[in-house]
């Protein structure tokens, strides 16, 4: 791994987010190292999803900077950030229910398509060729996430566990350098959770940096290289899993009272 700036794929400095009078994030600094799995944990309302929405460009932060590969991105719209190489999933499943499983992943490849309205209307060879390539790579992704045999099904018809996997598959379509997973194991049973966490490991093994929000501590402790703990929009701890497990401040935040 190269040293210096390149090492941190994502850098947040002094990020503040206020909604009216409510301070959702206050003066947050943290980095994500290239090629690692970083988890963000914290009690409900700690600001985890807000943080994700800022990184992915759903809205800009009130203050502070977000740098991706050394360049500021906090002012960019969501689709521009996707172009740069950040992809995400949603806490509440946001699949395109009106489309098939395959089409969902193909839409995930959108940043690589770039067909114009006119080119697609006249079925120019270049647009047909691109479409074929996208279809092939979407099928490859479906094989990777284990949904290849369901490619024709409507995304709505899948059970929750598979919908969660499909969201991850769709997010992989753009071949992102950083993938942000918002509670990939929420609502899953033990087997499904196991499948999801091995999938995350496999994605990371291919070189994709993973940033993850998760409540399931078993998953977090097992797969993360580093953990960031938020409480009321502030960082209260950051470090490798074993350190976090024994941090009195973290235990206090989760269990309340004196540690």
């Amino acid at each position: 791994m190269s040293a210096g700036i390149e090492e941190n794929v994502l850098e947040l400095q002094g990020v503040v987010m206020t909604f009216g009078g409510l301070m959702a994030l206050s003066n947050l600094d943290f980095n994500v190292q290239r090629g690692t799995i970083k988890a963000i944990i914290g009690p409900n309302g700690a600001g985890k999803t807000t943080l994700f929405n800022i990184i992915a460009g759903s809205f800009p932060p009130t203050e502070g900077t977000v740098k991706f590969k050394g360049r500021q991105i906090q002012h960019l719209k969501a689709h521009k950030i996707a172009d740069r190489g950040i992809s995400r999933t949603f806490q509440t499943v946001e699949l395109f229910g009106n489309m098939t499983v395959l089409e969902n992943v193909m839409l995930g490849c959108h940043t690589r398509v770039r067909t114009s309205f006119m080119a697609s209307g006249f079925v120019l060879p270049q647009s047909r060729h691109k479409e074929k390539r996208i279809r092939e790579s979407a099928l490859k992704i479906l094989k990777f996430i284990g949904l290849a045999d369901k490619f024709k099904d409507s995304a709505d018809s899948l059970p929750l566990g598979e919908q969660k996997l499909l969201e991850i598959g769709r997010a992989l379509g753009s071949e992102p350098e950083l993938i942000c997973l918002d509670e990939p194991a929420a609502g899953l049973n033990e087997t499904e959770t196991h499948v999801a966490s091995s999938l995350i490991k496999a994605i990371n093994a291919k070189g994709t940096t993973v940033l993850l929000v998760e409540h399931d501590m078993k998953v977090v402790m097992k797969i993360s290289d580093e953990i960031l703990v938020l409480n009321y929009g502030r960082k209260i701890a950051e470090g490798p899993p074993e350190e976090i497990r024994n941090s009195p401040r973290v235990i206090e935040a989760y269990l309340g009272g004196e540690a």
Partner: protein
Amino acid sequence: MLRIAKFPIAVFALFILVFPWMARQIPAIEHYPDIMVFAGIYCLITIGLSLLMGYAGQISIGHAAFFGIGAYISGILTTNYGMNPWVCMGIGMAVTAVVAALVGTPSLKLKGHYLAMATLAFGIIIFIIFNEEIEWTGGPDGMPGIPGLILFGFEFDSVERYYYLVWGFVLAVFVFTVNVIQSGTGRALRAIHASESAAGAMGVDVARFKILVFVYSAVLASLAGSFYAHYLNFINPATFDLFFSIKLLIMIALGGMHNIWGAIIGTGLITFLSNEWLYYFEEFEVIVYGAILLFVTVLLPEGLAGVPGIIKGWFRR
């Protein structure tokens, strides 16, 4: 994969080709090609509307205005300035594109029914302009003397000739739109319909696609307006009122919004209903449309284009 079968398109094209000949054989339907010209003109609008509403999920209640802008630009430029009708048609489409982009850009940024409200207001404003700018439009009395269409000395002066001209355009626009639906662009539009935030996160430029499809549908309405003006040789504001915008919605709702065929089926049926079959209802025609809309939304949410699917469902059980 969303695939729209080619075979029915070929059958449909063949039907369009032989219909005037069929109509000539049966005295009772001899005049049907004339009604079909109107159906074709309306189809140009509803194909675009189907892409806008059914696929991209954006509601417009102002397309009568774009239809009117095309008709009046063709009418004014040909009668007052003696310009070539085909050039006027192009100017009409270009002006409409600019107007649609101006109206669409602020309103498409808003979510929910704001586009519907904005286009509704826009439609009413344009309708008032057609009525009040008497110097240009002739006001409520309308604008007579719009010339017919001639291409390289070939005059589209009979119903049959105009029929083939209009339906040739309808088929071309239909095939073009079907191609768009089946491409990455169509996928992006359907994604926007399902979840704007997810589409954005996957790299779809939501605002750009929404404006693009809105402009496309407006330009088609303008083209239809020009054809209308040159066919009737006369236009008046009443054609382009709010009720016509709503009638367009009834057409695609009856046919089925989520299916491009719905635009053709619904438009054909409603055009024949209003020009021919509902003749006896006179003023009560509106009630029939209301009943149709009610019936479709409650019992056939997929419209008539969804009926084959329902029947297939019965057999599978």
